[in-house]
């Protein structure tokens, strides 16, 4: 998916600008890019009087009248029943290195079948994938891909995992949940890449069918979440807490944005909170910001800022702290906390060497937490 395919109008069907209004043609009704929403009822909502509903999937609790859509843009009240419009309607499907998600402690060196639909329940001003996350399903090219077909595709592509990623998978919850069940029945793991803005009930259900969750912790203050994410921090922290308390593997990414969420005291508080909540072994990735979407007025994060953030987190007792989006940086690699030897050496999204033996450091035998096989 790229912007050109989204921005259909640019392709234009013979625009004739010289005489009055340009010529247009109607899209054939059967076009895959046309408005052909699925008709799968959403799972987390309550019906209210007068054909209204209240969504219970995420903390927004959108209360909607007939014909209205939620903040995510992919769920619609149709006559008093609530439907997901993206079930089985993938807009993106790629085979990616698992390191790209990033998951550093899950099956390193393998690929993940990575999929998404349109939609997101927040609106980060620095979104990297806004062309699919900040649009409605009918505004983006998509294709039919059932949960069964997605799981089969992972197997046929040699991917031991499926990653629900790129946009916000919580908004295609039903599709993700059913795909994860299908994947598990075929021995394929499921990885969720999420902002973590979800209610506890749906999250608990999801944790029963997936294997790993990477939470994008976008800042560590409510003010930042309100101003730049259009969400709230509290529910995200509860998600981190719930995943950490479950048997599902957790990693955390923190995109460091110059001047906005890079205050040392915030980073220190975040690292301390993570340590106390998720334990010292939760991998934390400090990722480099690049100007994007509605935030093109800031420079890329200085590498020194990322290194300082990493030092802060290590000082708080976190044992696996990485730097992301800086290819070739030594902090891309996993270092054994026992002997300080490099256990997994990474170069960008590739694993260069691995000295991990059955989940232990080959040098000193220290157990390295993660999903390794």
């Amino acid at each position: 998916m790229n912007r050109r395919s989204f921005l259909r109008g640019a392709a234009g069907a013979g625009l004739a600008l010289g005489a009055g209004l340009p010529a247009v043609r109607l899209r054939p009704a059967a076009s895959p890019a046309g408005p052909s929403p699925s008709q799968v009822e959403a799972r987390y909502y309550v019906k209210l009087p007068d054909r209204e509903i209240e969504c219970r999937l995420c903390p927004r609790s959108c209360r909607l009248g007939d014909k209205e859509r939620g903040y995510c843009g992919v769920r619609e009240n149709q006559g008093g029943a609530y439907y997901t419009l993206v079930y089985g309607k993938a807009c993106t499907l790629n085979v990616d290195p698992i390191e790209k998600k990033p998951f550093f402690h899950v099956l390193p060196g393998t690929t993940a079948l990575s999929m998404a639909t349109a939609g997101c329940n927040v609106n980060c001003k620095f979104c990297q994938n806004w062309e699919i996350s900040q649009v409605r399903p009918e505004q983006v090219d998509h294709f039919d891909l059932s949960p069964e077909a997605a799981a089969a595709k992972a197997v046929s592509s040699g991917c031991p995992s499926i990653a629900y990623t790129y946009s916000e998978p919580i908004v295609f919850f039903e599709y993700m949940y059913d795909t994860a069940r299908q994947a598990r029945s075929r021995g394929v793991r499921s990885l969720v890449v999420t902002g973590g803005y979800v209610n506890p009930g749906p999250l608990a259900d999801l944790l029963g069918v997936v294997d790993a969750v990477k939470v994008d912790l976008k800042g560590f203050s409510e003010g930042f979440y309100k101003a730049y994410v259009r969400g709230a921090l509290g529910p995200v922290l509860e998600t981190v807490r719930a995943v950490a308390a479950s048997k599902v593997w957790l990693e955390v990414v923190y995109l460091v944005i110059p001047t906005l969420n890079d205050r040392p005291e915030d980073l220190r508080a975040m690292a301390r909170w993570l340590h106390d909540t998720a334990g010292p072994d939760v991998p934390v990735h400090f990722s480099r910001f690049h100007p994007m979407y509605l935030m093109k007025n800031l420079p890329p994060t200085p590498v020194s800022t990322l290194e300082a953030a990493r030092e802060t987190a290590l000082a708080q007792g976190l044992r696996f702290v990485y730097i992301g989006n800086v290819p070739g940086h030594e902090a891309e690699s996993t270092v054994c906390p026992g002997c300080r030897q490099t256990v997994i050496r990474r170069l960008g999204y590739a694993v260069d060497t691995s000295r991990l033996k059955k989940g232990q450091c080959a040098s000193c035998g220290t157990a390295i937490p993660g999903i390794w096989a």
Partner: protein
Amino acid sequence: MASAGGRRGFDRARQKGHHGSAMGRPRVVVVKSSAVWTPAGTLDPAVLARMFARGLADLTGERDSAQAAAAIFRPGERVGIKVNTIGGRAISTRPEVARALAAWIAGGGTAGRDILVWDRTSRELRDAGYAISTGRSDVRVFGTDAGGAGYENSLTDHLDVGSLFSRILTEFVDASVSLAILKDHGLAGLTAGMKNYFGAIHNPNKYHDDGCDPFVAQVFDAPPVKSRHRLTVVDALTVQFHRGPSYHARWAAKFGGLIFSRDPVAADHAGWAVLERLRRDAGLPTLEAEGREPSYLRTAERMGLGTSAAEVVETVVGAGP
């Protein structure tokens, strides 16, 4: 095309002030007619035509339709009529109303092929009773999703708004009329002329927090809208005065009115007043009492988009010519 006389009319109107009032004070004209409804419950096109003629004459101070139209549109301009059809046939800008406005504009000298009635999708237009027309010979009707239309390639990043605007607005037309429907709105309090432009962007669902404030004002203030908007007409023939924006028959009233203004804030304030009147008549609390008054109108006024203190003129059009 508008005549040279029309051009003079436009210039005269500009001399009278940005919003077309002789005293410089923005004006809102509310035209009502109980005769607009036929015994069968349909709209009488002849009465509608008179309501438009009267409303726009009173608004511009020009009794001649061509002069009145020339006071609003420049010669040769392509005019877009943005309707609101999200509510389906029950509570959308009615096709008869859009036709009447298009006819009035055409009567003022704009070629039919240079008039475009549009909304977000052709499906919603169809569902609201519009016949889709993409030909070149007469008034055209289609949605942004029509092939060859679509959204702009680049985001408009304006204040708190980051959106792709419909190319219908940015490339297909030179002047825009917001021909809105008047409805209560559960989140915004009110949807009328200003919020109608949410249908011109690709991501309106992102702007419903905090009572849509400041987003309604900021979408309007964005160059694609602000540079083209010339006129607000609010279809208040049937008003959803409670539990909107969806249609609920027991809270929908046949008010039988059209609201005209060149001041977008003033037009919506007049619509708000109608809404409150109907709510009071039904024994309902005010929007403010329900904590959802349309605060975006205050924001819009602070931004200089219009005024809440316009001169409001109410007129009644009867059944006869």
